Each structure stands twice: as structure tokens, then as C-alpha cells.
């Protein structure tokens, strides 16, 4: 695993770790932002079908410049392509895939994740903010496995993994695993379990940057 010189994982590393954990044949929805990188990191020999909630199963790579189609976009309203074997459908069918538990993995960005897997990723709750939720609440309520890709702390250094979310919630007890620039952390019934640390990160250092107790769950045999 490559890492930046400070021993932390890059966004691409985080995406590669998340892609590694997605099983062959999975149907996956990628959120806007860092999660979009996961599509470029699927290991060779694995087949993963990407879903976008605006009505496409089988999202392909970005189009070559000049061949963008305004009627073929993803949930971030960016131009995409469709793979051979793709399917288009209307919004109620698309969200039946999400809410009916048919999708295997949802990869989302986050503002905060709590020790019990509560997710806050849609609103700062500030009075003059324009509230906008999109499909986030549907994804966390319906997809079988919900994983988060995010920086471990805010730009000002505050933990984003917290005892209780201070921002408005997207869902309660919904996150299964968190990938950050510092670690891979599972949300379990026993608490937050650190499974892997970036090369330059110690457990003590990770705990200091995390707003809730961590259990050292590294596999020391490797």
C-alpha cells in the first residue's frame, strides 16, 4: 500500500482499500466525492456493477472529452458512460433497489460518524443553510452494507468520529465500516474496532485523533 510521506493514506489509497473489500459480483452505489474514486480501484478479475440512483445500473468510466451526453449522468449530475449490459429505469425502481435491500454496498462520504454507527452527512444544521438530502437517507436505510470514506479529522483537526453526532443525522446505527486517511475502523456491538492503520500511524496517535474509544483489533499475525 502506497502512502504519502507523512505515513497517512491518500484518498486513492482509501478508495483502493474500500474496493478491495467489495466482493466479486457486488452491486454498489458510490456517493459523491471521495467515494467516486472506488470505481477506478476495482481489483483485476473482479466484476462489480455500479448503480446510480438517477436510473442506471452499470455505470461505466467517464466519457472521453467531447462525447459527453447530457442525458447520461450520475447522481452528482456529471457525465458518465454505460457499460455493455447496463439497464436504465425510473426513479421508483431505482429506489426500490436501494430501499428494498437489493444493493450490496453503499459507499458514502460523511461529516461525522458516531461510536454506534450513526451517520451525519447531509446538513450542517446552520440556520441559513439550504437543506438538501438527496438519496442519502434512503441509501443508509436500505443498502445491506454501508461504508464511509472520509478524512479522519476536520480541516481544523477536530475528530469526525465522535461519541455522538452534533450534526443532524442521516440515519441511526447504519455505518458498518469507516475508511479514513489514518485507519480502517469497524463499527461493532462492542464498539469501534481499528482493523488497519496507515504505515505512519500508531494506535495511540489514532486514538488521540478519535472522539470515541477505540479497540485495537489489528491482526498482529500479518
Amino acid at each position, binding site marked *: 500500500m502506497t502512502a504519502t510521506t507523512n505515513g497517512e493514506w491518500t484518498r486513492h489509497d482509501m478508495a483502493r482499500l474500500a474496493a478491495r473489500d467489495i466482493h466479486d459480483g457486488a452491486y454498489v452505489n458510490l456517493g459523491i466525492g471521495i467515494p467516486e474514486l472506488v470505481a477506478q480501484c476495482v481489483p483485476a478479475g473482479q466484476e462489480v456493477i455500479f448503480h*446510480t*440512483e*438517477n*436510473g*442506471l445500473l452499470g455505470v461505466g468510466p467517464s466519457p472521453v472529452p467531447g462525447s459527453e*451526453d*447530457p*442525458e*447520461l*449522468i450520475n447522481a452528482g*449530475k456529471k457525465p458518465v458512460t*454505460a457499460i455493455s449490459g447496463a439497464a*436504465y*429505469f*425510473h*426513479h*421508483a425502481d*431505482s*429506489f*426500490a433497489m*436501494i*430501499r428494498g435491500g437489493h444493493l450490496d454496498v453503499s459507499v458514502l462520504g460523511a461529516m461525522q460518524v458516531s461510536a454506534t454507527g450513526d451517520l451525519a452527512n447531509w*446538513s450542517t444544521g446552520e440556520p*441559513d443553510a*439550504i*437543506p*438538501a*438530502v*438527496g*438519496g*442519502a*437517507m*434512503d441509501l443508509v*436505510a*436500505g443498502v445491506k452494507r454501508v461504508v464511509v470514506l472520509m478524512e479522519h479529522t476536520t480541516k481544523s483537526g477536530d475528530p469526525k468520529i465522535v461519541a455522538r453526532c452534533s450534526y*443532524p*443525522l*442521516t*440515519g*441511526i446505527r447504519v455505518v458498518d465500516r469507516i475508511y479514513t486517511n489514518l485507519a480502517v475502523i469497524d463499527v461493532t456491538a462492542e464498539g469501534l474496532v481499528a482493523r488497519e492503520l496507515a504505515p505512519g500511524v500508531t494506535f495511540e496517535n489514532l486514538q488521540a485523533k478519535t472522539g470515541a474509544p477505540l479497540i485495537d483489533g489489528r491482526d498482529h499475525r500479518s
Partner: protein
Amino acid sequence: MINKIGVSAAEAVADIGDGASVMIGGFGEAGSPIELIHALVDRGVRNLTVISNNTGSGRVGLAALIANGQVAKMICSYPRSANSLVFPELYRAGKIALELVPQGTLAERIRAGGAGIPAFYTATAVGTQLGEGKEVRSFAGRDYVMERGLRADFALVRADRADRYGNLAYTKTARNFGPIMCMAARTAIVQVRQVVEPGGIDPEAVVTPGIFVQRVVEVASPQQESLLVKEGRVYP
């Protein structure tokens, strides 16, 4: 003889009056019926409730309808985006109401409305601000909130092809809310790129059966919203 093909966008929206509820298809510009929306701007009717996933961009299409002061309330899931200028301004000034709905709940409310289902239960938004004040019931140990089916007086939708029966086929991800909005509106008005003869759409490939469609207008070369926004165009 059944013939749902109308002459013009203006004629198709002529009976949309003050206070009407209008579903408007599209996800961003994909599937947004820009010519029908502009015809509604031309009519100048006010106090509309608009149900649409977004609030438009720049000052054309849905954003022009809002900027023109014709919309009293928006029901949508994502009222801001890169080029949405008009809605945030009016919302902050308290001049437009917003009912924010999770996107899947919005789609299912529309589908349910069209299918004659007055309400349903969903796990989406349980325990969040958007679930507050809603009836909660537990099924098999999990909590769900009750959401109501949504209907509207009119729907404005864009599709790719139609025949005189109103059967529709769409293009790629421009399909999005079109089929369910046609179902949920008392009068569904659809602009299409091309009108074809009956049978011109393979019955196996009809996405919206004509029973859900009341009026069709052919707009062979629809304007592209993002290009108009890039050029800084303002409608009217």
C-alpha cells in the same frame, strides 16, 4: 379517434391555473421539460406548488419559473446545486416554502399516489429531522415512518418518443421521474423529441403506457439547459 398530440406547448399548458400543483420531471437538466416550463412562465400563473427533485439552475427552465415569483412551495429532495441561484435567494428571504423529502421517499410517494395508495411505511428518515412528527410503526422489530402518497393536478415531463395514444419511450437517465409523474398527475403533459406512428415504439419497449398520458407536444430540438446557463441566458 384517440389523438393526444397537441399543437403547441402554450396550448398544452393553457388550463394550468393559479394555485395548481405541478409535478415537473427531470434530474438536473436530464429530462427537464424546458419548453413546457417556459410556456408555463409565459402564462404567468401564480401560487403554484411544484414537485420536482431539484430547483433548476441559472435563470432558465424551472429556475425561471421560481424567479418569476410563480411558485409558492417546492417539494423536492435537493434544492441546491452548482448553478442554483434563484431558489436559495428566495428561500433565505422567506418568499418560498420548502418541503424537503428524501429522494427515494419522494419517488415512492409519487409512485404510490399514481397507484392509488394513500400512505405507506418506510425505514428512510427514521430518527432524523425529516422523520419528526411522522407516525412511527414497528414491523418485525424495526421502526418505520408513515409517508403519504403524492398526487398533482398536472405533470410536465420530457420523453424521447410518443405515439398518438401517448405511449412513451425515454432516453437513458433522462427517464428518472417521468414515468411515475405521468402516473400521479390528473393531467400529464409530455414534450417529446419525436412523434411516431402507433406501433413505432415496440410494445415491449413502451416505458409509459398511454393511459397515463393526456397530452403530447413535439419539440424536435429542445433547448439544452446547461448551455443556456453557460451563456448566461435569462427567461423570458
